């Protein structure tokens, strides 16, 4: 059982991924490609922009997340936080970027409300040279992900109970709730959020679609420069793009290493702060409530805007509501790609969860670092590079243009996310429950099915929902591997977006948001504990 448990994950996920990455290694040795890459006039500023937008958006999202958690921990609104996080997770990044862009751009809704007049003001609110619009949008979009991770840590069974007891102890030692959160809850919380923060940072620094919509162009982020290079018709330019990919990845690794080093160094200073003595610092209830409502308002407004955009052929400055509505955009949302996307994503999510569970059940925890590490690498590299490697891998095997190849290509990012999200809850599960069941003469499978599975319902469903949402939004792998034989919903959406038809893009973006929202809703409802 030991090795066969690891087999599906190894064969269907790790091996194709490693081989695909290996296909990229020749790029590291291609001197001409490096020469071309390093000579690119936008390289240095683009790299700086990628790193800054990644770092700032991550820190901002973390600050907002901690604020919300600190303010609402152990309060009545705690459960609502979970719902807010789930809602935010379901909206695809591209949809959020389009809606957010329409809010803040010079001819956008906020300008129409605040300034009016006949001609839009000349604000630099999107495509600004410091990437502020992109950074803010990234922070807002990643906040639900961090919140979900944080809520999971603070609500999870034994761990959460122990933390609550520790808070009681801290109160008896004279610390007000705010001080308790800061000194007792926050340190283990930050430790548990390490990997989600890494993902958020890496995503922010390598995102392409949001950067194309909101980020500057002269220069763009390095991810966009790479995107253009990898998309070029000439092979030499593609090779330079790969070299730049390796450079960006190395830069990200360096930033993470420095962050880890700084973390270690500040521990002593932190210890002094943590043990300074009782403090009357209150929980930031009011501020957290305001922030939470503001975040919800932005999200709601963005969704409303996308809905209106999908129904309006024109929405010129300065009218506040579109002058006319029609359904032409919605009528163009083709059913066949929708079904393919739904079925493919359901299959990928299920398979990923099953493989992950098999791994965690049969492998020792110390082996986790290999799969989690590989998963992080998979998510850190630009999809165009990993998917490009996969395409080159699949081509000789005849997997391109087939459903099997498409499935495998989707499985790569989905399994990566599922592994990362499931690792914590699965390993933290108290093995004594299963031991108790087995002592009552249940077989291993029976004990798993009747005791462990129901108790892990919530994290498993949540991981499946995340996997589903990730899968349904996949464009790059699908585009490359299908080689034109199939069409998924994101493929239709992106090709239409290249034509700039905004109502159509908005309609597709919404069509892409609905399945994950349903999945998250289902996960939340089905994952509720049987008794409160």
């Amino acid at each position, binding site marked *: 059982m030991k090795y066969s448990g690891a087999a599906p994950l190894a064969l269907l996920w790790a091996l194709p991924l490693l081989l695909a990455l290996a296909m990229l290694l020749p790029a590291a040795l291609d001197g001409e490609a490096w020469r071309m890459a390093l000579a690119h006039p936008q390289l240095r500023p683009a790299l700086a922009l990628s790193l800054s937008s990644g770092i700032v958006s991550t820190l901002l999202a973390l600050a907002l997340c901690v604020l919300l958690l600190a303010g609402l921990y152990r309060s009545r609104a705690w459960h609502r936080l979970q719902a807010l996080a789930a809602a935010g997770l379901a909206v695809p990044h591209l949809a959020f970027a389009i809606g957010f862009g329409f809010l803040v751009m010079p001819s956008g809704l906020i300008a129409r409300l605040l300034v009016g007049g006949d001609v839009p003001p000349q604000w630099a609110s999107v495509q600004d040279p410091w990437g502020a619009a992109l950074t803010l949008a990234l922070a807002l979009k990643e906040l639900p992900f961090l919140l979900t991770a944080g809520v999971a840590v603070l609500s999870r069974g034994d761990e959460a109970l122990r933390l609550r007891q520790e808070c009681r102890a801290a109160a008896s030692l004279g610390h007000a709730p705010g001080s308790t959160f800061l000194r007792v809850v926050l340190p283990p919380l930050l430790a548990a959020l390490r990997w989600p923060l890494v993902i958020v940072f890496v995503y922010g620094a390598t995102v392409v679609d949001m950067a194309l919509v909101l980020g500057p162009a*002269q220069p763009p982020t390095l991810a966009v420069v790479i995107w253009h290079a990898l998309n070029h018709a000439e092979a030499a330019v593609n090779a330079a793009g790969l070299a730049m990919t390796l450079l960006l990845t190395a830069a990200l690794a360096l930033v993470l290493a420095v962050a880890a080093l700084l973390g270690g160094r500040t521990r002593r200073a932190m210890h002094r702060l943590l043990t300074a003595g009782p403090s009357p610092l209150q929980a930031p209830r009011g501020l957290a409530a305001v922030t939470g409502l503001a975040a919800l308002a932005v999200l709601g407004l963005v969704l409303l805007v996308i809905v209106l955009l999908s129904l309006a052929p024109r929405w010129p400055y300065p009218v506040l509501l579109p002058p006319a509505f029609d359904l*032409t955009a919605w009528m163009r949302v083709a059913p066949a790609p929708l079904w393919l996307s739904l079925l493919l994503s359901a299959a990928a999510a299920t398979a990923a969860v099953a493989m992950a569970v098999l791994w965690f059940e049969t492998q020792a925890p110390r082996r986790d670092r290999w799969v989690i590490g590989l998963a992080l690498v998979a998510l850190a590299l630009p999809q165009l590079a990993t998917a490009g490697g996969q395409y080159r891998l699949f*081509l000789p095997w005849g997997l391109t243009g087939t459903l099997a190849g498409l499935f495998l290509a989707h499985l790569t990012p989905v399994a990566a996310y599922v592994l990362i999200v499931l690792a914590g809850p699965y390993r933290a599960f108290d093995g004594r429950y299963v031991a108790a069941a087995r002592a009552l003469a249940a077989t291993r499978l029976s004990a798993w099915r009747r005791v462990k599975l129901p108790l892990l319902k919530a994290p498993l469903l949540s991981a499946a929902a995340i996997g589903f949402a990730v899968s349904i939004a996949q464009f790059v792998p699908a585009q490359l591997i299908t080689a034109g*034989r199939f069409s998924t919903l994101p493929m239709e959406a992106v090709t239409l977006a*290249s034509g700039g038809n905004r109502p159509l893009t908005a309609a597709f973006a919404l069509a892409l948001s609905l399945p994950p929202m349903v999945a998250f809703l289902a996960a939340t409802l089905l994952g509720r504990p049987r008794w409160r």
Partner: protein
Amino acid sequence: MPLTLTRRGFAGLAALTPFFMGRAQADGSWAEIEAQAKGQTVYFNAWAGSPQVNAYLAWAAEEVKARFGITLEHVKLADTAEAVRRVRDEVKAGKAGSADLIWINGQNFHVMKEEQLLFGPFTEELPNFALVDVDDKPTTLVDFAEGTEGLESPWGMAQLTFFADGAKLDTPPMSMMELLDLARDEPGRITYPAPPDFHGTTFVKQALVETIEDRALLPMAIDKAAFTAATAPLFDYLDTLHPYLWREGKQFPQAQAQVTQMLADGEVLMGLTFNPNEPANLVDGGTLPATTIAWQNRGGSIGNTHFVAIPVNAQSKAAAQVVANFLLSPEAQARKADLKVWGDPTVLDLDKLNPAQRGLFSRAKQPGSVQKPARTIPEPHGSWVPLIEAAWLEHYGA
């Protein structure tokens, strides 16, 4: 147009020769090709950013199915370069082709031709090729100043066209200098997409054509030194223009579609396109107001032809040729040129058609149509493009 023995002229003649020579056998072998094509599936890799294009191709699919028993599948691309890369990878791996027909021109075509990734020459075998207006539309044989050599079949015409809301802009600028004046009057309200978006590159090329001292250099291959010298006036012009542009020329939109959207939203005064009928199309679709006007620069506007080509490893070569021929038929070309459908100008010579076929083409003007079409200025030689893109990036990229 005087026939001078420029390199372009030579290439044009060379491209025509096999057409004349192969003519005699055309009828016999064409019937064979049509027979072979029956039952085949053609994967037509074409940019799918426009619902109009997609709808037209859906119609074409129905037609070729009914007439020739061919299944036409529109493989939707966001960028033609995807298909180029795919064909290259497949040929390198010795795999059968996933693409049978590609909508292509310019840089992408040159790359495929140089790497010998194209099947052909085949255009002279197509019966409908005889209807193509090779005389008045020389770009049907010469793609970016290099001969097509029968490797790509013409499909439609393109010409740089500007458009704006006539209610906000009563005198459109009819030259790049007039554009500069307009920008001075309305600072921050004009922009163009950044190269290497091909509309942006074309905008720069138009400025190049209008500022270069020696136009004879354009159809010829050029090297970096000569380029830098020849483009000094161009970059002087752009340096003067940019501070009056949107965001003071420090930021540019990344794609033509974005500029169109900015125009629709009211953020900029004018947009640009390669399809002279796109503004009319947009008015029809409700994206732009009925007061939209479209125009081309008085002294001539850069234009080209776009083509379809067949990859060397295509699996359904016969059917692909039949489809290419169908796309050249008067019915297909007329429907394509119909403003209500797509509005893409035809490559055919209407004088070569019989009255019934000619009647299929409507000349009616619609809101947003170009009132006074200008003459077409052919594209400079393909070697200018990467140099323009690199130089633009150096000057304005960061």
